[in-house]
């Protein structure tokens, strides 16, 4: 056992951090700065990081889930308003199915509550759902059930608009006709493939949450050092210090479970990987809401204004939380895995 990041992984983190520091929005107003978003988009495309899960020899991904999670965390910290999660998840689905790479930016189509991929019973059924992280995206992948497994289908995506998360607009898809992917040699996905993909997805959302928490605490810590009341920096008040200390502690715990979930996604059998991911997601999602709320609290009234970045972090956390199941859904996975369910409350 040696769970330190390798030198290459450290270097990747530094490169991703640099990209984010150069191009992520430094204020809420900058979210609307088209020239900046174009620069961020160009830099991310240039980095090739959206293709980390593209197949190399024998279908293995170019980079491990640990590396992918490192990039996701830094983009979350940004917060980077360019699509990464959606395209990475789509690439991962294509890799598992042995499908040819997409020709344009693509994401995944999730059920309206974002709890999982949209699955239709046949190709005649129309698809509805949410194409997450859809900035600059042309299509989204869903699944069609066949007798022997699941095949990939695509639906066109247009008109992404910011909802809960202002950094990662989503697009509603209503009644779109699914199209079979072109090309041959693709294989059907099994339930185990979907489990493994879900574990990978959860691990990436955890990494995004860890990054979001870091961004929120950095923001609050900076503010606590400059804002003065009673003639002192508010960061010298013990109650403010203790809120931020607890937030930092939550980030550290979240980092440890996320590192394991990312490792597990490529290493453990799908059921075990999913269990590790569920532990991580329950932990990180619970922590993230609290940490982002702390960031608002530390800002006082300023924290309630649209112009303060704190709500941008909170909103991003709320979306990442929802993808493939929130705190409760993942705690339910833990209950199922440890076989401690099957209860009644004695009253019903």
């Amino acid at each position, binding site marked *: 056992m040696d769970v330190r990041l390798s030198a290459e992984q450290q270097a990747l983190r530094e490169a991703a951090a640099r990209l984010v520091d150069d191009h992520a929005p430094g204020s809420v107003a900058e979210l609307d700065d088209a020239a900046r978003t174009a620069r961020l988009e160009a830099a991310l495309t240039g980095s090739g990081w959206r293709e980390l899960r593209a197949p190399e020899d024998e279908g293995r991904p170019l980079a491990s889930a640990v590396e992918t999670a490192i990039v996701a965390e830094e983009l979350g910290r940004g917060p980077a308003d360019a699509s990464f999660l959606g395209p990475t998840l789509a690439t991962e689905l294509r890799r598992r199915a042995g499908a040819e790479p997409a020709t344009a930016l693509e994401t995944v189509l999730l059920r309206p509550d974002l709890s999982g991929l949209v699955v239709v019973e046949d190709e005649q059924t129309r698809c509805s759902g949410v194409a997450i992280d859809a900035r600059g995206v042309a299509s989204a992948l869903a699944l069609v059930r066949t007798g022997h497994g699941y095949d990939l289908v695509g639906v066109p995506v247009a008109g992404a608009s910011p909802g809960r998360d202002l950094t990662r607009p989503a697009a509603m898809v209503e009644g779109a006709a699914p199209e079979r992917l072109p090309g041959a040699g693709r294989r059907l996905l099994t339930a185990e493939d979907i489990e493994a993909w879900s574990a990978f997805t959860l691990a990436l959302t955890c990494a995004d949450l860890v990054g979001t928490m870091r961004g929120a605490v950095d923001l609050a810590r900076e503010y606590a050092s400059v804002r003065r009341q009673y003639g002192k*920096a508010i960061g010298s008040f013990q109650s403010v210090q203790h809120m931020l*200390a607890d937030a930092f*502690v939550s980030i550290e715990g979240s*980092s440890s479970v996320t*590192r394991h979930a990312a490792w597990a996604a490529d290493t453990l059998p799908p059921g075990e990987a999913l269990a590790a991911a569920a532990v991580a997601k329950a*932990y990180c999602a619970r922590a993230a809401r609290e940490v982002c709320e702390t960031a608002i609290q530390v800002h006082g009234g300023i924290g309630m204004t649209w112009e303060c970045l704190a709500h941008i972090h909170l909103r991003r956390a709320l979306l990442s939380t929802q993808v493939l199941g929130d705190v409760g859904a993942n705690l339910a996975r*833990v209950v199922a895995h440890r076989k401690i369910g099957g*209860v009644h409350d004695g009253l019903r």
Partner: protein
Amino acid sequence: MDFADSPEEAAFRARLRAWLAENNPKLPQSSTADEYWDGQAPWHRALYDAGFFGLSWPEEIGGHGLPSVYEAIVDEELAQAGAPPRPSLGYLVQGMMRHGGQDVRRRFLPGLVSGRERWCQGFSEPDAGSDLASLRTRAVPRGDEYVITGHKVWTSYSDEADWCLVLARTDPDVPKHRGLSAFAVRMDQPGIEQRPLKMINGVTREFGEVIFDGAVAKASDMVGSPGEGWRLAMTVVSHEREPGELGYVARYSKAVNELVDRLRSAPGRFTEENVRDVAWAVVEAEMLRLHVCRRLSDRLDGISHGPEGSVDKLLMTRVEQAVGHAALGMSNLTGGIEEDTWLKMYLYSRAQSIMGGTSQIQRNLVATRILGLPVA
């Protein structure tokens, strides 16, 4: 980055697992039963003699000089087997190793590590808890010895101990942090009186008061140099905050396995709330296991520890108290406290945010030493 065992680690794990299958003394939790202490010393010696204790410590003190990650394997296997955790004395070892001279290290550490000599830690006093540096116990030189007078409290396992690592004031004329020195003091001597304290959960062997009234320590039993006591105490308490040093992953994982078994044994008896509390205990304990893997891996770089011990103490406290809350849900309202292990476990869990420096003190340290916020 790999959580999996290397071939050597896997072989070690298999050897330990086989040994545990034959040698698990099946003691109750120390936090809930005084009987634990009747079996703890033989358990410590058995674990040591079989080569499974002190893995990452130097060979000259009885350790094995292995990478620190071996400790994580020991904790996992102890929990899996439902065996007692490894003895929590790493913080004393670290303090004496770092501050004790050659002679002190050679005389005391092998006995401490092998379990042949038992130790307690006499730092806190009635008027010096969080503000430890204000302690009043005096050590006055007389010939080639020191005479110790003072009152220590909450001294854990003092009735088991052959030795006490006592922090005492040797120089009242300098600022409070600078006038302290540490001594190895024999517990079986006339100038020492022990008064056991009963904890809120009824156990009586967790801690006690120790009154020093003219007890003596040889000058050569001073640990570190005169005035080095504060720095030694900080080394000790900072390691006391590290779950990897304490072996607490095994404690919590074992408790969680017991909670899981309890739920499975009586499905339908518990509420959804109870199940949720146990699920959180599972999540928290797993977090700590993974966190300790991370910290012990970082030590492979030779990074030992710093203020992040306070982070780990706060994480560990959340785990213990989540386990405590889940245990409370298992407790039987009609039974007396004598039998109610779950209630005892819950009540004991409240100690974790107090001992080894309270949670408030840890948060002060995280805020100022790690986050760089201005000292109030």
